[in-house]
């Protein structure tokens, strides 16, 4: 039977293997396909249903992460926990007040360098988590 430390490490690796490539793909998409992403974001923000729906999915995914992986150690695994909490907060916000999500999202998307900055951050973060999940 594996020890508890090994068990939690296995959970961290599993979640990292799922989250890492998704964040990397989004980051590359934002950097390489900025115009389409901007248009897509505008379309996403034009109505409540998709915001609400994405909120439900985000809340379930975030709650799943923080329930199976609420680890605050001084290493890369805290990143996964932090991502879980961020997704939970975003999901709750989108469900409770979709109109504010449109307001906040609209002003963020209108910023000219948003997709470059967000893409670079997501690419770095996703690349690091993917590396930790698959290679290290």
């Amino acid at each position, binding site marked *: 039977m594996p020890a508890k430390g090994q068990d939690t490490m296995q959970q961290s690796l599993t979640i990292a293997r799922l989250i890492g490539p998704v964040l990397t793909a989004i980051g590359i998409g934002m950097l390489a396909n900025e115009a389409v992403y901007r248009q897509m974001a505008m379309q996403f923000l034009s*109505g*409540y*249903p*998709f915001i*609400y*729906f994405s*909120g*439900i*999915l985000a*809340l*379930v995914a975030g*709650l*799943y992460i923080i*329930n199976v992986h609420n680890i605050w150690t001084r290493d890369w695994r805290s990143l996964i926990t932090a991502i879980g909490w961020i997704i939970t907060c975003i*999901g*709750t916000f989108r*469900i*409770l*007040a*979709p*109109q504010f999500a449109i307001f906040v999202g609209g002003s963020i998307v209108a910023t000219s360098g948003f997709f470059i900055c967000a893409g670079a951050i997501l690419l770095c973060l996703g690349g690091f988590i993917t590396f930790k999940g698959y290679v290290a």
Partner: protein
Amino acid sequence: MERSHFLAKLIGPVCIAGGLGMLFNTTVYRAMFERALHDHMFIYLSGVIALPIGLAIVILHNDWKWHWPLIITVFGWLAVIGGLVRMIAPQVIESYGLSLLSSPNFFVIDGGVAVLLGVLLSYFGYLDPPQPAGRRSSLRRRR
């Protein structure tokens, strides 16, 4: 971790958030539901997501004993049935949903029920964690 508690930890807060939104953000919710119900693609997509989630719940948790986990089993089966109807006949959901929305008290009743269910599930999930097997059997012996 016991499955019922884990599922309650996931479903409970989602019900609370959705219920609070229905109770306190009624105008936006009404506009949102009306728009979603006119979009068959959106109804279909929600069915594609609801069906596997419901199937996962009923496969892992098909407990029909008269106890609080029954709520989760019923929730799972409703997700399966709702997902199937959404995928097979989105127009049925459209007409049924629009008739529900025409009732002025729909959001108050639905939001209230969702909050109550969510609080109940969150309580059992987060505040009433499963007893370890050894402790449970010793309690039973003491009785």
